[in-house]
């Protein structure tokens, strides 16, 4: 396994120059670039709109700098595959569900949002697209493993992908899931976007080793590590993982060393906290995943200024349309709390189960002391 860690990367420093397009078609490359550019623009414009309008009144974790994994997944996953996301969900949502306007409407708390404004950014889901997210670390990883179990039991060839940060590796249930997936050789891809920080807390303050892949290997999960801002490498690793899991090869863990170049939450700059050193910020800014691919594409004649402007124009139009849709959609009202929390109908029980006289019981029955243990 390639030895990449955050500290190793910074030690080498400078510009990453190993991006190779081997194994990718020109179409793959264009799609990856288009997705990343669109996602970046989407996040930047959401940031701009967030304040002072204050119409998006929910915690939003932007994914600027971490576009590579969602971009790769958008090309790899099929509609029958499942995708579970961490709280930094927008890229994953777009990768699996596509529609930007339902994402925006959800952030705006509108009834036309993916979850009618109930979930917001960090809990958004789209059941029909088999996309789910959640804010409690590692919880979604364990649930994803269960989905893989369900798939396996039904003999389907779907695959489950689940993204999480290295912070999830602090949690016990994360390792329960990794161990169980290995035990049962489940079709699940664990994707660790290792961005070094759980909120403001550095990885090595919380874990004795900062390489999740090595630990997963010890559990018997095939693992790989890539430079997470090299979207081509990320794509190749995830594509290989997907084929492996789909063919019954068992679980795979892909760790991508990447960086959140924005704040942990919200558009406000959180650098005043002083948790990330300047040279580190500089390094990752130099090695922005979009910039790295863009330069490669220009060198290879796959992209020029005209083409880029056209892509920017397209994404911008989609984003403006999404804002318009969200802002003009109605806010939810008059919720039936009971219905929302618990489905009152049980169609299956209605069909399968008979009725009995539930008032007649054996009135002479005696309770007994349980046997020991």
């Amino acid at each position, binding site marked *: 396994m390639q030895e990449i860690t955050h500290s190793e990367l910074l030690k080498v420093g400078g510009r990453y120059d190993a991006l190779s397009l081997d194994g990718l078609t020109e179409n793959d490359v264009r799609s990856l670039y288009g997705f990343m550019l669109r996602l970046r623009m989407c996040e930047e414009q959401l940031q701009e709109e967030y304040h002072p309008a204050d119409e998006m009144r929910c915690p939003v974790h932007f994914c600027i700098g971490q576009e590579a994994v969602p971009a790769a997944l958008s090309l790899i996953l099929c509609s029958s595959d*499942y995708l579970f996301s961490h709280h930094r969900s927008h890229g994953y949502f777009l990768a699996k569900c596509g529609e930007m306007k339902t994402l925006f409407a959800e952030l705006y708390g509108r009834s036309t949002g993916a*979850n*009618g*404004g*109930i*979930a917001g950014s960090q*809990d958004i*889901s789209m*059941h029909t697209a*088999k996309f*789910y997210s*959640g804010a*409690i670390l590692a*919880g979604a990883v*364990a*649930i*994803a*493993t*269960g*989905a*893989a*179990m*369900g*798939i396996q*039991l*039904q003999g389907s060839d779907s695959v*489950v992908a689940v993204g999480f940060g290295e912070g999830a590796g602090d949690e016990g*249930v994360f390792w*329960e*899931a990794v*161990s*169980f997936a290995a*035990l049962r050789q489940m079709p699940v891809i664990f994707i660790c976007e290792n961005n070094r920080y759980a909120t403001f807390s550095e990885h090595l303050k919380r874990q004795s080793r900062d390489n999740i892949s090595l630990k997963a290997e010890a559990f018997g999960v095939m693992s790989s590590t890539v430079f997470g801002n090299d979207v081509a490498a990320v794509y190749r690793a995830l594509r290989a993982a997907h084929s492996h899991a789909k063919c019954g090869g068992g679980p795979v863990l892909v760790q991508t060393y990447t960086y959140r170049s924005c704040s942990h939450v919200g558009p406000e700059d959180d650098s005043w906290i002083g948790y990330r050193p300047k040279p580190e910020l500089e390094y990752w800014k130099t090695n922005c995943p979009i910039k790295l691919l863009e330069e490669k594409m220009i060198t290879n004649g796959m992209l020029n200024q005209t083409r880029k402007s056209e892509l920017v124009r397209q994404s911008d139009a989609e984003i403006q349309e999404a804002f318009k849709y969200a802002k003009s959609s109605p806010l939810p009202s008059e919720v039936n709390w009971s*219905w*929302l*929390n*618990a*489905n009152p*109908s*049980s169609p*299956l*029980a209605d069909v*399968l*189960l*008979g*009725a*009995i006289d*539930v*008032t*007649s*019981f*054996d*009135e002479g*029955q005696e*309770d*007994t*002391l*349980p046997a*020991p*243990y």
Partner: protein
Amino acid sequence: MRMRELTYSAAIREGLAQAMDLSEKVIVLGQLVDSKAGVFGTTSGLVDVFGTNRVQDFPVAEGLMTSSAIGAALAGMRPVLVHQRLDFMLYSLDAIGNWLSLWRFKSNGLSDVPVTIRAVVGKGWGQGPQHSKSLHAWFTHLPGLRVAMPSTAQDAKGLLLESIFGEVPSIIVEDRSLFSMTDHVPEKPYRVKFGEACVRCTGVDVTVVAIGGLVPASIRAAKTLGFESVSVEVVDPRTLTPLDIDTILNSVRKTRRLLVVDPGWRSAGVSAELISSVCERLGTDLACNPKRVCLPDSHTPMSYSLEKEYYPDEKTIVNAVLSMLQVSVGDT
């Protein structure tokens, strides 16, 4: 026709077997559910019929087990989880509180996760503080869950089947002291609906709302009091969420006296909820202050002499009823 009798544990086993027969989506997960002992007989032999894929001896990882059930339910399965002791289930509180109970809610009603959790509450033979907790009040407090406390073999089977084939995640709290009791249990797969209380015996002087493992003692107390010409109505809510408050209110309207008998701790528990729900509607109509018989606000002791002191029994209930009548007689 003489009705067929089954024990509480055999009724659960039959319910599980029938559910697995009715639908291939039903799976049973839990520690040692595939062993001969079969969790007090409730899963015995199932593995021989349905195989290890559907009757899974799960790793000792309760948090993962509950989360896996959520995931499996998303993929179309109907998992039943089995905890030999409810206490071990506490490792899965994140899965229950942060995911399972609010899954439908946060999907805006678009996604259901029909997971059934069976939790056995130990009682007697020195189970002590880590083998005997009945935390039904905790689960009742959470929106998005159904909570059942079956007190008869008949209800144990019917509520289990209703849970498995319903859409709402359900927690069934099973009191170990009930496992050898026998009741009329119809052979066919049948349902006992949530939110439908059962009047176990009718009376006019005092309403005793009895829950789960303390229902049999309450029925016996009612019989004993009957010999003293005290007429007690025992209402068994069967399920705490949803709660059939109407049946309880109707009974209290008649008797004007309410005693709640709850196998949980006294403070901030289900007994408090029931009494306040009744008082909100009928407070000024009551003939005397409502009363409750609960476990003391203490963890469970091991020694059998202290167990006797700790757990309420028929006598505790009889005395509580008598004290209420004395108060009310003095008032009128």
